[in-house]
């Protein structure tokens, strides 16, 4: 239990320290120490076997209720201040629902906090990846045009956010979960609006009202649980059966779809890309959006082999394809990464909702390795943005000449998402095997399988299309100057790459299958090739063939976009499917 307290309190203490001491070097030390401590604690928790339960004292519960009301009032105030009707209406709806629920909620139940296997696994991701991102953020904020205090506030906010995340993954009370869910919404709102310009403000409000929908469905789900089973605890709810159980679970799953930015809600996550890069990496890729697959994983014991579970896997699978496809029309690197995050979250939710033991394990693997790879990619994108002011892949053509190292990290990120023997690839591979083995029992999963196959292929197209812009080096004849990456950026990138490799090695070893280990052989060979084959100097150099033209010309990047009509049909389709989750839940 102490260790869980450390995970929750240490980030807050670190944030306070950061606020107190304005020295740059001390900031690195504090965030570095926080990263080290948090990952060690998370790792030792992960390896420990026992589960913990914890009752919150009554006073604390009252404090949380008060904080919740203040939070909702703050949303209402923001809605009024910026004259956004959606935010205001949703805030009022939440306030009314929340007030009513607190009146009828049963006073006692099982423990409010339960740390189980899943929570420990999430701790590992949140603290390992999140810690690295905080370290990176210190360097990143140096170049930002904001007051020093605001910069420290920013890094502090990221740290506090870590402790919120640590708490949300062990919340057993739906109301506590709701409070923390709204806290992440608040973090998202404030951090997207950090730069304070008009676009940031607009996108922040969009993120706010969309996530508030998630809050509303959680509250309705909690209300249903109270009416049906007289409980607000996840564990009691999941153990009960019959009645309105499916409706309650369906409503809670809908919150996951919103938080995971599944279509038609992907707009908020795309808009969130205007925020400083550490925010995109932390909230909108590595940790916060992982609440979505986490929640589905938590609910999976009930979802398995039900209509609701089926509909959610269907949505997840279709989102995987649709978001991968939509990403092909984008040219801003962070938006491309955002869409691919939406896609992969869809896949994770689809696998989690299938709910067999195997598919749950695969979904967890995807959550872990996606967090690592996407954090690496976002942070690398941030380096290019800070060092060269490039956001658009069109401006990044030939970037390999100017910054070979960062491009190397990005390529490594892409490779780790698509090729053997890295974790995410392995997850997809086992997912195909696993879904295929379920086909004879549930032929309907053929759609999930098809989506899995096509979506993976589209992502290959997407990533290597981006790679084509980054590569395209000049021939050796032309020398170009190189710029080193600052150490403050380099260390987090190296640490993440190390995590990816170590994770892949660990995961391969866990399989205890000689063939899986052999899958790693080609990758090793390719990486070792430059040291095996030496003396490339003996070959004469030439310049690329230009068909006799004197001036060199570039080939353009390829974009694919659906027509407006198809796009609209797609959004309507996903909207209907989203509502269908609740309807199916109500009917079963």
């Amino acid at each position: 239990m102490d260790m869980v307290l450390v995970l929750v309190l240490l980030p807050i203490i670190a944030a306070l320290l950061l606020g107190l001491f304005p020295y740059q070097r001390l900031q690195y030390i504090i965030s570095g120490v926080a990263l080290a401590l948090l990952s060690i604690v998370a790792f030792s928790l992960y390896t420990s076997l026992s589960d913990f339960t914890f009752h919150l004292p009554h006073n604390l519960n009252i404090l949380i209720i008060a904080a919740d009301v203040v939070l909702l009032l703050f949303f209402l105030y923001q809605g009024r201040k910026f004259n956004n009707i959606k935010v205001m209406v949703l805030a009022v709806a939440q306030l009314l629902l929340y007030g009513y629920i607190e009146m009828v909620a049963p006073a006692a139940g099982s423990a409010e906090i339960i740390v189980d296997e899943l929570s420990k696994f999430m701790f590992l991701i949140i603290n390992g990846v999140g810690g690295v991102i905080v370290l990176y953020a210190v360097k990143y904020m140096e170049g930002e045009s904001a007051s020093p205090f605001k910069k420290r506030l920013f890094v502090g906010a990221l740290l506090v956010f870590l402790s919120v995340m640590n708490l949300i993954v062990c919340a057993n009370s739906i109301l506590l979960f709701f409070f923390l869910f709204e806290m992440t919404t608040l973090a998202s709102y404030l951090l997207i609006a950090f730069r304070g310009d008009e676009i940031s403000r607009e996108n922040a409000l969009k993120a706010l009202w969309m996530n508030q929908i998630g809050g509303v469905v959680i509250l309705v789900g909690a209300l249903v649980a109270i009416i049906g089973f007289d409980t607000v605890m996840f564990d009691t709810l999941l153990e009960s059966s019959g009645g309105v159980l499916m409706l309650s679970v369906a409503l809670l799953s809908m919150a996951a779809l919103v938080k995971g930015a599944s279509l038609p809600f992907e707009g908020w996550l795309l808009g969130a890309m205007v925020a400083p890069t550490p925010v995109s990496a932390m909230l909108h890729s590595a940790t916060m959006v992982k609440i979505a697959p986490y929640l589905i994983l938590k609910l999976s014991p009930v979802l398995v082999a039900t209509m609701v579970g089926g509909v959610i896997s269907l949505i997840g699978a279709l989102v995987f394809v649709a978001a991968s496809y939509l990403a092909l029309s984008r040219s801003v690197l962070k938006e491309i990464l955002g869409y691919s995050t939406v896609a992969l979250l869809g896949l994770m939710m689809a696998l989690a909702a299938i709910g067999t033991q195997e598919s749950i394990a695969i979904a967890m693997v995807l959550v872990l390795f996606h967090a690592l790879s996407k954090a690496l990619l976002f942070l690398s994108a941030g380096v290019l943005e800070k060092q060269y002011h490039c956001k658009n892949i069109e401006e990044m053509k030939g970037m390999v000449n100017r910054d070979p190292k960062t491009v190397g990290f990005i390529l490594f990120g892409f490779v780790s998402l698509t090729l053997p023997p890295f974790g995410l690839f392995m997850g997809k591979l086992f997912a195909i095997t696993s879904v295929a083995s379920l086909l004879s029992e549930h032929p309907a999963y053929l759609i999930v399988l098809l989506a899995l196959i096509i979506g993976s292929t589209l992502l290959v197209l997407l990533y290597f299309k981006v790679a084509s812009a980054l590569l395209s080096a000049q021939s050796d004849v032309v020398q170009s100057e190189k710029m080193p990456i600052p150490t403050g950026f380099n260390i987090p990138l190296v640490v993440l790459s190390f995590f990816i490799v170590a994770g892949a090695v660990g995961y391969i070893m866990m399989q205890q299958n000689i063939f899986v280990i052999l899958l790693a052989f080609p990758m090793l060979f390719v990486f070792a090739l430059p040291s095996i084959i030496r003396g490339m100097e003996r070959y004469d150099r030439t310049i690329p063939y230009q068909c006799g033209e004197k001036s060199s010309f570039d080939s353009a990047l390829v974009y694919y976009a659906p027509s407006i009509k198809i796009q609209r049909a797609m959004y309507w389709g996903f909207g209907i499917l989203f509502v269908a989750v609740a309807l199916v839940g109500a009917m079963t």
Partner: protein
Amino acid sequence: MILVWIALAPLLGGLLYGAERMLRARMQRRQGPPLLQPFYDMFKLLDKRTLIIHAPHALLALAHFAVLWFSIAAIFLGWNLLYIIFLHLFAQILLILAGYSVRSPYSHIGSNRELLMVVAYEPVLILVAVGLYLVSGSFEISEILKTGGYLMQLPLLFAALLMIVPIKVKKSPFDIGEAHQEIVGGIEVEYSGVFYEFLYMSRFLEYLFIYSFVYLFGGESHWVGAVLVAGVFLLVNLVDNATARVRPAQMVKIIYTVAMALAVLNLAGVLL
């Protein structure tokens, strides 16, 4: 024994390629080159001066060939079909990266097309693997070859596979990767001498790769497998002589609508 076959794989593929050139010539009532012409070409290439753009570009061709050979070895050893498909994908990605790594428009367009080819055939290949799994109960080639009757149960899936064979061996109507009138040599244009040799030999291996999938449909009977390969070989070359090249986007569209529909229909039929 099996190791010898693996070592000889490029030779086998070379013979297949030579046989194909003979067959095409006969179909066009030409004399055509001798069976061993691919190997004569290789010796000729070795004599040429090697010019490279930059070292990683040259090494990627070697890596592509090596990984492709590894995936062929995995086929001969009877591994999991999915692993083989993804090892092959890895090899293709190396080639694509090679094409992108030079600032040459032809090389870039060649890579773009190669990527589109992957997008087109990859899902069908995986669906073929899933189809074979559903009938035989295993993804392992060694297990798949122990039972039979795939052709009876998976006729439409076999038709889908037939549609992607021309993509892999770069034959009309899907020879977009080798459209020299449009993209000169594509990815190959920037290679010469010994490094081109590797790309030339990977082509042999590609033949082995895709025809192994055809062979699998024969199941336990080697004869059925051999007849299937011979039949498909003939058919692909016949179609090559009789059709014109489609545009890249059309190719993806055709495969995604027709071939995928066939594959999915067949799988649904097996399941229901």
